[in-house]
């Protein structure tokens, strides 16, 4: 079978993702330096908020979404050995790229400094919202492309879904569960606000945004977990401890990743306590699949050691291939994700949230999840995907080992400093943390430590972009049969493979969790506020 078309899609999507990562990462460093008092580089407030908007939109949405699209096409076409619809695939890519260019142009022009949460009634240029809408439309067509091909495969084979495909499908299902929220917000409220100055009810818009904003986290995370399930057994020359438990974990993500958005709104007025509490509990249920994932992966690591005759209780940790860049990167991702998860439990714990809400604790937290568990996994996976998809060898092999170690060290420093600073009340999203001299000195010290971590992260990012960029352009040709990475399984399907059952159940849970908050919001009567520029 010929995968030229699919591979071309993946190549464009991944190169686009790398470009966006390079730009977005640069902004991140500038922000950290600006937030560090007495550093030589200081952005003015309008530049800082432009940078913060670009950093958030480009990295949290564009970098992740494009890498995931490239990965999804690769996994689905090779693991299921099927071709995708050419026109849908091209159409989705063109729409997505056009959308991103529009939004990016709006941000860089300085007319849309509304950050990546774009809370109304703060107003951005219409181009910003229209670009986002087109990007979402593009991703929906992309998801349709994948599902059409999958349904065709399913009808023909009637076999169990292989694990990597299962992960990709789960990712897209969560994206489709989540994005209607932000689509409604943008189309119903924000585009009219931007074009016609229509007032917007802030609580309603925020609730739609966070309906999307939290499952977005799992949209990032599930491809990373899929890559963990994919690489760990292959790197250790064994099989996954079990293929059933990972599927159960993925299904739990389908069920519980969406009806949790209100845990971002615990200190919003106008949402009753019992609805806030319900979504707090639902958030705890999402910890279960993370626990199951950790078990399967660690058990796989230990299993490979025992298979090789290892006897010592913890000897398997030392025997792991720590000098392998892909393994090291994934292991660091998992370690930091564990801390990210514990921090997440604190954020979601209803009363405790008021302590950390809107402080740098939150920034420290999600840089462990999206900026490490997800981003570092995508980075090190590229060291295999570049030979597999681009047929190019990595040029600087030693740099691939150094890079994840630097990221791990840099992120540990940055994130720890930001977590602690958050407990001292240092706010996020502020260009100048001195507050005219009333800032406690510990804020300044922690900001300086965080900046050191940021510089190390940036060096790691530059090494990554340089190495993968030169390898894609100038690497020696390698003839790698990417299909051989996947093994052919032909198991009988079980209830776990009936994804439609789980999606219906998920929709029921989402309705139960959200119908009452929305009833409360609408029955109270909306009180729209007129738009204002930042």
């Amino acid at each position, binding site marked *: 079978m010929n995968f030229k078309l699919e591979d071309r899609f993946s190549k464009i999507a991944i190169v686009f993702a790398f470009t966006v990562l390079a730009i977005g990462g640069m902004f991140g460093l500038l922000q950290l330096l600006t937030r560090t008092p007495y550093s030589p580089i200081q952005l003015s407030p309008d530049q800082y908020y432009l940078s913060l908007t670009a950093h958030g939109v480009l990295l949290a949405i564009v970098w992740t979404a494009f890498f995931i699209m490239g990965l999804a096409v690769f996994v689905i076409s090779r693991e299921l050995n099927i071709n995708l619809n050419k026109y849908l695939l091209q159409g989705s890519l063109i729409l997505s790229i056009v959308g991103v260019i529009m939004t990016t142009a709006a941000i860089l022009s300085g007319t849309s400094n509304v950050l990546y949460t774009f809370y109304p009634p703060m107003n951005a240029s219409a181009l910003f919202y229209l670009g986002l809408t087109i990007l979402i439309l593009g991703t929906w067509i992309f998801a349709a492309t994948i599902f059409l091909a999958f349904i065709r495969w399913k009808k023909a084979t009637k076999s169990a879904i292989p694990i990597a495909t299962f992960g990709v499908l789960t990712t897209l299902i969560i994206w489709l569960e989540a994005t209607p929220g932000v689509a409604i917000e943008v189309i119903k409220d924000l585009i009219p606000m931007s074009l016609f100055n229509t007032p917007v009810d*802030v609580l309603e818009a925020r609730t739609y945004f966070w309906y999307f904003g939290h499952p977005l986290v799992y949209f990032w995370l599930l491809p990373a977990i899929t890559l963990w399930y994919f690489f760990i057994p292959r790197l250790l020359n064994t099989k996954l401890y079990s293929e059933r438990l990972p599927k159960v974990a993925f299904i739990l993500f389908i069920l519980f990743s969406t009806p949790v958005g209100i845990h971002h709104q615990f200190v919003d*007025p*106008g949402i009753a*306590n019992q609805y806030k509490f319900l979504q707090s509990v639902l958030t705890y249920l999402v910890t279960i699949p993370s626990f199951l994932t950790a078990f399967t992966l660690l058990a796989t690591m230990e299993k490979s050691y025992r298979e090789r005759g290892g006897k010592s209780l913890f000897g398997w940790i030392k025997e792991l291939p720590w000098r392998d860049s892909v393994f090291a990167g994934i292991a660091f991702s998992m370690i930091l994700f564990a801390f990210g998860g514990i921090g997440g439990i604190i954020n979601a714990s209803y009363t405790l*949230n008021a302590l950390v809400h809107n402080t740098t604790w939150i920034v420290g937290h999600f840089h462990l999840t999206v900026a490490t568990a997800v981003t570092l996994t995508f980075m090190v996976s590229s060291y295999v995907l570049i030979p597999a998809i681009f047929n190019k060898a990595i040029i600087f092999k030693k740099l691939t080992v150094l890079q994840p170690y630097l990221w791990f060290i840099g992120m540990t420093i940055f994130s720890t400093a930001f977590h602690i600073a958050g407990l*001292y*009340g240092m706010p996020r999203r502020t260009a100048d943390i001195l507050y005219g001299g009333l800032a406690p000195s510990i804020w300044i010290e922690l900001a300086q430590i965080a900046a050191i971590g940021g510089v190390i992260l940036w060096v790691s990012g530059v090494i990554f972009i340089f190495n993968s960029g030169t390898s894609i352009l100038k690497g020696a040709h390698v003839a790698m049969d990417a299909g051989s990475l996947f093994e052919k399984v032909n198991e009988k399907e079980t*209830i776990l493979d*009936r994804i439609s059952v789980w999606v219906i159940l998920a929709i029921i849970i989402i309705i139960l969790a959200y119908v009452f908050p929305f009833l409360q919001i609408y029955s109270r009567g909306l009180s729209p506020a007129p738009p204002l520029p930042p």
Partner: protein
Amino acid sequence: MPLIPKPVEEWYKEFSKQEKIWIAIALAVAIILAATTLSWPLIDPKHEVPSSAREFNPTAYKEIANNFSSIYNGKLVPPNTDIYIAAQQYFWSISTLVLKKGVDYRFHLGSLDVIHGFTIVGNGTVYSIMVMPGMEYVFTMNFKNAGTYYVICSEYCGYGHGSMRMVIEVVA
């Protein structure tokens, strides 16, 4: 194609003993987390999350908040007096609030333009809630320690966001 395949394969029997133990542990952790979260505000209602919102008229509220500020700015607010604060790009309607230690005060917070964040920092305390246009947030606070607290805006509200601050002096 039936929704649930028949006969339903007993896929769950394939879990190993270790996996079953681990599932039980994960479930127990989730239940314990939910139970502690619920019990905290039940044991002491002071820890309950504030949610109460009132109808809000920006013009009328601005006047109430300005009135409050003109009477009490820099002066001790007597117990049983409601506190009205309005947020606006880029200042709070009152610059120095003086409160008595250990007294329950009812706060009213509202925004006259965009979203703001009301974050209290000082004397080991960090507490944040949202200030939104279109709604009046009502909640009770009791300061256990005397001293100087700062209120800074913690939600991005525009280019001057970083300069938006006020002081709360708590006296014994």
